[in-house]
């Protein structure tokens, strides 16, 4: 760990990986990658690789944790044991528990939890490969996974970090800058610039903090644009879908189903008229016909006939 670079910023003002001081790493996003999750997102940000999955809203157990007028957001940040050079012990650590807690709180103000009382929205973020700024990357991925799951939110959350190296503020730290820098300030904010998460490691002067927040606003807006583009282009390049007859459906949907019911009533009016007794008699009649048609079904229908006889006797 003693391979600290002599200089973080060269004479041209470029950083170790060739970025300018206010430039973020390239980001790649894929939405809806997991078939069994309600919403999911895979995100690559520089050398970070994050997989986020959202399940729910679903019933919350244990029941004592249920909130009577809101959904609980259960957020899990986890680093895969192979995500860094030195193997990390699998399972929750002090660090990951803390990150999980603050990340859940980063989403609480924006997710409209009041629509799903007594439930839980589970967010799982797995760091598959880490290279500094994984909590912000995980928040960016989780934000998209929540949108993909169809969960109502006030807006998306974008997160980014600012750090200090060689006495200069830089946006979106890479690993060297994170390990040997003087400060690290991860922040999550909404598109309006409302901060939902702010942590700090190291020292910054009040002026530096103010300047950092300005840089972060710019960085988060940039990330928000990338997130927005990813959502717009999930179904193809065009942000406009060529969809027909969506309108009216929702209003007429109920009416239509009602009509359907009326239709089916026409076919088996007798079934519903005197409820179950008649119903079962008719069923038997139907089954007799089936036996004649299909000898394979004989065994099954005989069995059910016997069953019905039993219940009549009782």
């Amino acid at each position: 760990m003693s391979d600290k670079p002599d200089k973080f910023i060269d004479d041209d003002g470029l950083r170790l990986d060739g970025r300018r001081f206010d430039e973020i790493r390239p980001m790649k996003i894929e939405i809806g990658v997991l078939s069994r999750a309600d919403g999911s997102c895979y995100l690559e940000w520089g050398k970070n690789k994050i997989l986020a999955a959202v399940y729910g809203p679903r019933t919350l157990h244990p029941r004592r944790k249920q909130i009577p007028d809101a959904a609980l957001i259960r957020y899990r940040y986890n680093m895969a044991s192979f995500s860094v050079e030195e193997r990390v012990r699998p399972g929750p650590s002090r660090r990951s528990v803390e990150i999980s807690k603050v990340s859940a709180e980063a989403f609480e103000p924006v997710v409209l939890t009041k629509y799903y009382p007594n439930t839980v929205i589970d967010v799982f973020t797995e760091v598959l490969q880490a290279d500094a700024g994984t909590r912000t990357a995980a928040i960016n991925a989780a934000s998209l996974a929540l949108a993909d799951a169809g969960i109502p939110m006030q807006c998306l959350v974008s997160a980014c970090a600012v750090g200090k190296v060689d006495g200069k503020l830089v946006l979106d730290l890479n690993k060297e800058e994170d390990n040997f820098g003087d400060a690290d300030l991860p922040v999550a904010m909404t598109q309006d610039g409302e901060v939902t998460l702010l942590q700090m490691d190291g020292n910054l002067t009040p002026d530096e903090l103010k300047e950092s927040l300005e840089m972060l606003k710019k960085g988060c807006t940039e990330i928000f644009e990338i997130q927005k583009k990813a959502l717009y282009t999930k179904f193809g390049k065009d942000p406009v879908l060529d969809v027909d007859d969506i309108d009216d459906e929702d209003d007429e949907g109920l009416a239509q189903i009602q009509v359907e019911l009326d239709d089916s009533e026409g076919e088996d009016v007798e079934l519903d008229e005197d409820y179950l007794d008649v119903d079962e008699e008719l069923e038997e009649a139907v089954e007799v016909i089936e036996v004649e048609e299909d000898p394979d079904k004989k065994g099954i229908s005989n069995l059910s006939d016997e069953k019905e006889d039993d219940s009549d006797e009782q």
Partner: protein
Amino acid sequence: MDRKIVIPGELISENEQNAGYGTYVKDGNVYASVYGVLNVKNKVDVIPFSGKYVPSKKDYIIGTVTDVTSSNWLFDIRSPYTGMLHVSEFPKRVESSKMSEYIDVGDSAILRVKDVDQSMKIELTLRERGLKRVKQGRVLEFPPSKVPRIIGHGGSMVSMLKKETKCEIFVGQNGRIWISGSEEKMDQLTDAIRLIVKESHIHGLTDKIYDFLTNEKNVIDIETYVSSQDEIEFQEDDEIPEDIHRKVDALLDSSED
């Protein structure tokens, strides 16, 4: 018709009177709250791409029994909440010890939501015409957000499916569909429903599904008349040699030059 995709937090109207579902109002402006497609009619709605079914009063749904208690059947209704059917909501008087003889764990039923209270306690009912325990056929699941696509514009899709497959169909608002008919037709219908869900965001879906159903019929027709097709092929075989002779002649002529 072109539809714009919107994301949570996107400004969709500056008049708060326009706020429909899938939206929220802040400072007099209307914003989208879910990821979906914008639908501007008399109100501005966002039709979500995905999401869980949230029961509301008077919905027709298809539930599956998960438990039978002393006075209730508990139904899984594909929602974060369980549905309760009280014995008194069964069309016939049932003794509590005999409840599972009528509807047992694993059985499905077409139900209606009688009431939903503040704490999302869901009361169901079977006491209405058309509601019944499902005794034959199949129950398929699909994302609840696709319900409007399966019903179609004013029910066009469902009536087309019914007509083309001669199956009985019931679409539950909670993303379950009950179909009943001959095994072959139900297989065909299952595929058609899968196609609807997969291609739900394309234009002219009803026509496409119609083609899918009718084309599959053609495939079956061809297979049953394989012998006649063979005869056609033999006839063609007899004709081909003449063509080849002519072509070979032409080639020979040109090579001689």
